[in-house]
């Protein structure tokens, strides 16, 4: 025992200490009050799930790990990172499938391309590309838009390229391009539809299942 505690602890001091250490009378009602308050507090917490969630999120947690365990955890984390990066880099891209393409020419010579990029819930997103530097506007008509020339206008890009991506259900679709609202131009590189309900030539695209 340190000297500062022994110093001056004579019989008189021990008598004082003994008196000060006397055990108090405990009122059972006071204990019951604390118990009741704590249970009320716990019940209030249970009724407030967001409060508990916040408490859980902000509560500091501590854990211990051995050096070997720490190294194993670090190695596992590094492996996870490497595997993720490899998967990201090496995964085959969903390259557009070019159905038909031809170098742009002047005048009305069309170059149409359909490309499937996948992703539509009901089928696939199919990209239609039309090249005509002289056109003022180009639209797409087909059995998927009731052959309405105003329904699916293509967007003009640079170099006379027009394009649009249309989600199509799996199956066979007949389509055509409409130049400047009047001239129906089939996709010369795509398969030609054997007949035409509207008297002109149309093209065919086959859309596979998205899965």
């Amino acid at each position, binding site marked *: 025992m340190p000297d500062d505690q022994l110093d001056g602890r004579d019989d008189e001091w021990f008598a004082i200490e003994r008196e000060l250490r*006397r055990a108090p009378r405990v009122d059972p009602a006071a204990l019951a009050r604390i118990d009741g308050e704590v249970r009320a507090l716990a019940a209030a917490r249970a009724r407030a799930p967001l409060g508990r969630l916040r408490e859980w999120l902000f509560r500091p947690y501590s854990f211990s790990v051995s050096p070997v365990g720490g190294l194993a955890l670090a190695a596992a984390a590094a492996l996870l990172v490497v595997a993720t990066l490899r998967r990201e880099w090496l995964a085959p891209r969903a390259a557009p499938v070019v159905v038909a393409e031809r170098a742009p020419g002047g005048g009305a010579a069309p170059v149409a391309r359909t490309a499937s990029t996948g992703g539509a819930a009901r089928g696939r997103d199919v990209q239609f590309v039309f090249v005509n530097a002289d056109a003022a506007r180009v639209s797409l008509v087909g059995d998927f838009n009731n052959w309405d020339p105003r329904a699916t206008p293509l967007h003009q890009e640079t170099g006379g390229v027009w394009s649009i991506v249309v989600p199509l259900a799996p199956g066979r679709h007949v389509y055509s391009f409409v130049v400047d609202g009047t001239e129906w131009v089939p996709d010369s590189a795509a398969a030609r539809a054997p007949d035409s309900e509207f008297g002109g030539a149309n093209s065919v695209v086959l859309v596979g299942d998205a899965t």
Partner: protein
Amino acid sequence: MDPTDEDLVRRVRAGELDSFTTLVHRYYPRCLRFGLRMLGERADAEEAVQDAFLRAYRSLDRYEERDRFGSWMFQILANQCRTLGAKRRRRERTFVPYDVVADFSDQPADGFLAAELQRALMQLAPDHREALLLKFVEDHSYEDMAEMTGVGVSALKMRVKRAREQLRTLTRGWYDA
């Protein structure tokens, strides 16, 4: 074998409220004794102890296992007593010594002397009284006390020394064999 304080804390954190009741029953007598000696009134002491236990329950998530529950509990209680004592001083209420004879389970040989001792204790400065009680009545180490109070060990030793000297002066001759 009785569960340790740490076992009980873990169980409370897992939602077992009965374990907190066990902790209350385990520490209540010591806490009440400290409260009574610090505040000199039963009602104030019971209020301070009750508030301290509720605070402890609410803060249990912040309790770290390297702490000892007893020291942690007394840290909260000492704060409560300081707050209540300060409020009482602001109210300038006249101190009426509590009924020492009625408030302790084993009766002192001399009830009058016991009441006088409490009166003498109340004459010490609150921080000196707190240090003396934590050291000589509740048996905390100076290191624990430093953690509880935020006061350095040297300063605490000085407080205890002065408190004891003052108390001995006030009670000189009372406990002669």
